[in-house]
């Protein structure tokens, strides 16, 4: 079992990490690099002359291959890490409830993972374009982890709970971290155009959804295959 969980997560993490990295280079990293132009002051929005107009256009990926290779490598590490959590959850649910794990319902597991790990925390802490000042890192990391745990726990109650009461409790647990609220600054400090920040948020969430769906599909695919061998 341990070997099956580990190998499923590693193979699925490699596939999902590479696909996610490819999508990021096409859709997300160019926006990130464009954001850095405002972070460094190479471009200025809301300038002192009173004309909040700046040119649109990403600078291109450039020749920083070392930097981009790191992005690919860390995507594989991240997706393998999430793959291990997914594999453990799938294996546990299969053992406890007799649930059949297939590649197809793995898609649902992956999308539930996306909701718990990307969407719910992003409701409180929107994905940040570089150059967006934010509250202290430690309280944000704590809120981020708590919102993931609460959302995952709430989704599990809704998915596996036997009564309406448990389903309602699941929803309330999902809402709790949002009601408490994520740590934020008292002031707005952003230097980049709001349109650019908004696009960065929708792109990073949208392509993470594809990454997670791919991860769920392949973790389940390899888990199911490992059981029949």
């Amino acid at each position, binding site marked *: 079992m341990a070997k099956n969980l580990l190998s499923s997560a590693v193979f699925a993490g490699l596939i999902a990490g590479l696909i996610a990295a490819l999508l990021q280079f096409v859709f997300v990293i160019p926006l990130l690099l464009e954001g850095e132009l405002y972070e460094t002051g190479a471009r200025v929005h809301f300038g002192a002359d009173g004309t909040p107009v700046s040119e649109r256009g990403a600078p291109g990926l450039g020749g920083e291959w070392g930097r981009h290779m790191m992005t690919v490598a860390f995507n594989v590490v*991240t997706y393998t890490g999430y793959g*291990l959590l997914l594999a453990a959850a799938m294996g546990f649910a299969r053992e406890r409830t007799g649930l059949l794990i297939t590649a197809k319902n793995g898609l649902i597991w992956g999308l539930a993972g996306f909701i718990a790990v990307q969407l719910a925390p992003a409701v409180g802490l929107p994905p940040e374009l570089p150059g967006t000042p934010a509250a202290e*890192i430690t309280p944000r990391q704590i809120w981020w982890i708590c919102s993931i745990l609460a959302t995952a726990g709430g989704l599990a109650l809704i998915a596996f709970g036997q009564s309406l009461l448990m389903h309602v409790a699941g929803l309330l647990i999902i809402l709790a971290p949002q009601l408490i609220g994520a740590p934020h600054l008292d002031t707005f400090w952003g230097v980049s155009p709001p349109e650019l920040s908004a696009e960065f948020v929708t792109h990073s969430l949208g392509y993470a959804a594809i990454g997670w769906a791919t991860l769920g599909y392949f973790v389940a695919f390899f888990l199911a295959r490992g059981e029949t061998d």
Partner: protein
Amino acid sequence: MTTQTANITAVRSNGFAFIMALTVGVALLTVSGMAQATVLHDAAHDQRHAMAFPCH
């Protein structure tokens, strides 16, 4: 009797497998998303932003 013993052993080893997978998974995510050491932060920077980890 023999069957019972085998079942108990199987369940125990699965519990270990789940905990092992969770531990290794969290360790990997700590490295790729959470650790603030400068070298790690800089190398993982773009990926952290793209995956919406709370970064610097």
